[in-house]
Structure formats: C-alpha cells, structure tokens
C-alpha cells in the first residue's frame, strides 16, 4: 500500500505538475508557431524572465501574500503577467516585426528568436546572478498531507501549496483560453489565421492585431508557467534549454497550431518523463514474497536514469516526427 502511495506522490502528482508546466509553455509555442510560422526558441527564457519579474514584485512587497494567506509570489502573478505580455510585444516590435515587414522566410524569425533567447539569457544572469533563489525565503511553504484511510498505508499523500495553486491556475488558464478562442471575435480570428493565413488576409483580418494578441497570450502563459514552476521548485536562470525541448515536443505531439493538442501533449510528455525515471522496482517489491527465490528484484529499475531525463521528450519528438508529423490532433503540416 505504501508503495502505491509512493507511486501517487512520485508519478501522479509530479507528472501532473510538470505536465501542466509543459502544457502552459506548449500552448504559447504552438500559438506562435501556428500564427507567426516559426518555432520560438526564446519561449523558455520568456518563462524565466517572467519568474524573475514576479520575484522582483514579490521582494518589493513582502507580506502581500500573508494578507490573503497565499504565497506572495502567487499574489503578484497578475503584475508579472501584465509585464511579460507587454515585454513580449516590445520584443516583437524590436526584433520580429522588422523582419516580418521585410517578408523574410519564417525561418529567419527562428534565427532571430535564438538571438532573443541569448539576450534574455544574458540579461537574467547579469541582473540576477546565477545562484538559485527561493520565493520562500521569509515565508513558509505550506504542505498538505492526506492521510489515506487504509490500515496498511502509513505514508501520506503529499502535495504542496504551490503545486495545488499550479494545478488550479493551469485549469483556469486553459478554460479562459478556450472561452477566448471560441467565443470572442479576436480568438476566432486567431484560430482562423493559424488555419489559413492567406485566407485571413484576404478576408480583411488585421493580421498585426492578431499577432499582438498572440504575443499577449504567449507572454501571459509564459509568466504563469515560469512563476509557478519556480514557486514549486526554485528560481534559477538556467531553466531554458532543459525546458525548451519538452515544450517543443509537447507542442509537436499535440499538433502545431492546436492549443488543446498542446495541453494533451504537455501532460503526455510530463507523465512520460516521470514514468520513465520512476523506480519500478518499488512497485514490484511487495510481490517478492510470492515470487520464487531465484528471482530477485534489482534495487533500481528505471527506464532512464534521472540525469538522462532529457532523452524522454527527445524520443517522443523523434517518434512523432517520423510517424505522425501532424501530431495527435492533426495540426498543420509545415
């Protein structure tokens, strides 16, 4: 029974958490990919920047969280969202729009996004240093323990407050996005442009307005994901490349230009990662007494050692590219 609870803690909860982060990131990537037609390499660094913006706000107003009984980093999230959305638009104006206006091939925008990602990298390190920081320097991180009402289970199911907030916020974001995409003119136009950009232009849809909306959404979700991730673990400047690959994998698995696909893809990649690094021998151990003596269960039986976690999204990515480049939700073939 304890083994099962261990599984819940290590796989179900962790997988959901990391899956939500990937999903939020992948939505931004997939929207930008679908509408601006390039893989935005700077997205993970946008998440990092968002987290640092939240951190600055949190240290400017310590105790803001205590008033409502939530972590300060979470309370200042709306401010970080606004800042990062504005920041995303500024970056677009400075680095992407001039190229778009020159009608360059979309892959040039990809090169530009590499430049942007390096700049963000440098800025974060310059102003914040490389050492990790915690949102919970002066606050206590609440942890909820759920007693499992079985006799054999002595362990608790453990989930921390940031993790609960992360799951709730992700669900809220996803529903808000769904409503926006299906019930507002701008949202529908975004889907339309992602579907068929030429026809959108021919229909008189103001494409620059759509592009702006895309950056606002991508930036906002990046701020949410970055902040909540660093609330759950720590705030460090080198999230980027380790996060980028799973996010791209999630977006491609879900199908480019398909926000719902990105959510499914995010969860799929998140769970695959946690399942792959999970030590399966723990689950097998209770069966030891029923097995003949000559079979002994190795102490560690994981598909991938934790250090090699990055292999998992890569394998998923390659598998999808080979067998179904449009992703499970039939995205665009670009």
């Amino acid at each position, binding site marked *: 029974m304890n083994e099962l609870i261990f599984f819940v803690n290590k796989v179900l909860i962790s997988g959901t958490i990391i899956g939500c982060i990937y999903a939020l990131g992948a939505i931004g990537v997939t929207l930008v990919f679908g509408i601006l037609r390039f893989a935005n390499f700077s997205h993970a660094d946008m998440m990092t920047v968002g987290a640092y913006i939240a951190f600055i706000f949190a240290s400017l107003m310590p105790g803001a969280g205590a008033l409502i009984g939530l972590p300060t980093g979470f309370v200042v999230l709306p401010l970080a969202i606004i800042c990062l959305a504005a920041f995303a638009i500024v970056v677009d104006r400075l680095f992407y729009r001039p190229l778009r206006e020159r009608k360059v091939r979309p892959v040039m925008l990809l090169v530009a996004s590499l430049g942007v990602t390096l700049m963000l990298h440098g800025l974060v390190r310059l102003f914040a240093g490389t050492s990790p920081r915690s949102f919970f320097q002066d606050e206590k991180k609440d942890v909820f323990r759920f007693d499992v009402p079985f006799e054999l289970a002595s362990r608790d199911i453990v989930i921390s407050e940031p993790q609960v907030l992360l799951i709730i916020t992700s669900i809220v974001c996803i529903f808000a996005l769904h409503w926006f995409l299906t019930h507002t003119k701008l949202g529908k136009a975004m889907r339309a442009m992602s*579907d068929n950009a030429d026809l*959108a232009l021919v229909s008189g849809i103001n494409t620059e307005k759509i592009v702006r909306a895309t950056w606002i959404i991508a930036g906002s979700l990046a701020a949410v994901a970055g902040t909540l991730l660093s609330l759950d673990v720590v705030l460090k400047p080198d999230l980027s490349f380790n996060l980028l690959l799973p996010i791209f994998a999630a977006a491609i698995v879900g199908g480019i230009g398909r926000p719902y696909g990105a959510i499914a893809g995010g969860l799929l990649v998140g769970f695959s990662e946690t399942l792959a690094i999970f030590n399966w021998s723990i689950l097998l151990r209770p069966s030891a007494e029923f097995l003949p003596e000559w079979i002994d269960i190795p102490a560690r039986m994981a598909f991938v050692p934790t250090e090699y976690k990055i292999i998992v999204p890569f394998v998923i990515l390659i598998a999808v590219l080979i067998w179904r480049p449009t992703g499970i939700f039939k995205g665009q073939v670009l």
Partner: protein
Amino acid sequence: MLIKASNIVAGYGGEPVLNGIDLSIDSGQIGVIVGPNGAGKSTALKSVFGLIQLTQGTVSLAGDDVTHVPPDQRVSLGISYVPQEMNIFPSLTVRENLEMGAFIRNDDFSSVIDNMYDLFPPLKQKATAVAGQLSGGQRQMVAIARALMIGPRLLLLDEPTVGLSPAFVYEIIERIKAIAARGVGVLIVEQNARRALEIADIGFVLAAGKNLYTDSGENLLNDPEVAKSFLGG
C-alpha cells in the same frame, strides 16, 4: 463601370504573366474569364484584388483608383475574393467561417448570416460542423458565403466549380446568378468555358496574357473562331 482594370502588366518576378489586359464589368453583371491553361486567368483575378504587384496599368473601383490599395483594404472597399484552393478555414465551424468573413464589420451581422443560410440551405444544417469535414460542394458554398459576408460590391471567384460533381456545379452556378441578381458584380475564372459563358454577361477570352476576344457570353459562344479554338469545336 463598377470595376475597370486597364492595360495590366504583372507577374511573379521574372517574365510578366499578363501583358496588358483589360477587364471591366458593371454592377449586377457576371463577367467570365476563360482561356487555355497558362493564359493568366487566375493572375488576372489576383491583380484585380491586389494580391500581386502591377508593373503597369490601373485598377479602379466605381471610378476611384485603387491600384495601390493593399488587398486587406480593398475588402473594406467592397471587393471580396475567393481563392481557388484553401478557401475555407478548415478547423473552424461553418458559422465561424462566416463570422470571419464579416471580420471587418462591427455591426450586428446575424441577419446576414441568416441570409447566407437562405442562399445556401445546406449550410444551415451544418452550421456547427467543422468546415474541413464538409463535402467539396459544401466547402465551396462556405467559401462563397464567407466572401459575401461583407456585402461586397464585387465578388471575385477563382474556378468555383472545379472538382465538383455535376449536381453541385449546377447548384453553384444557380447561386452565382442569384448573387448577381442582387446587384453584385461577379468576376469568375472558369476552366469549363462553355458552361461559364452560358451565364456570362461579358466574356473575356485570354491567351498568353492578352485579351483575345471580349464580347457578351452569347456572342462568344456563337463565334465560330472562339468555338474552334477554346470551346472544343
């Protein structure tokens, strides 16, 4: 004249595809562009909509020069264009496709949508269906209805009946006649010259980027020269 394109020279960089063509129709008229493959029919239509840069010539809409107006602004002036392929938003519902056609409208256009449902009854039943899953004929209806949502003065259709079953071809042609009867000028590019000229008020026969004949549809159909060269005898 509702639309008047004179002496247009245009292409895609390199050799021009159009070498000085003239097209003009009036409100309520159906103009048909026919000609052999590579004559520049689709290019002519695109140049009227402003999708390609003209190296020479002018386009005017109801007397106003629109030669340098970009395509998205021509939509606001009342020109709608239906491309030959990829002319719907496949993952949007039929109704959403129509709403996107009305993107530039800020008024309540639900009556216009009802109007489209009257014009193309199958779309009413399929209103909430995803457009990409409709049959070819129904997609073409969505495409045309989308273009009509702004209440255009001029409708440009690039091969609206290509690849459709005969029943749908009849259906679409009937609808085009109905649209013109409402006072909209319609300019069509057609592969099937004979059928198109039957409904044409004016026919433009193009070859190698030039006007070869311009006359009423009936006269062109009865012209033995045209019949021999372009209508298969």
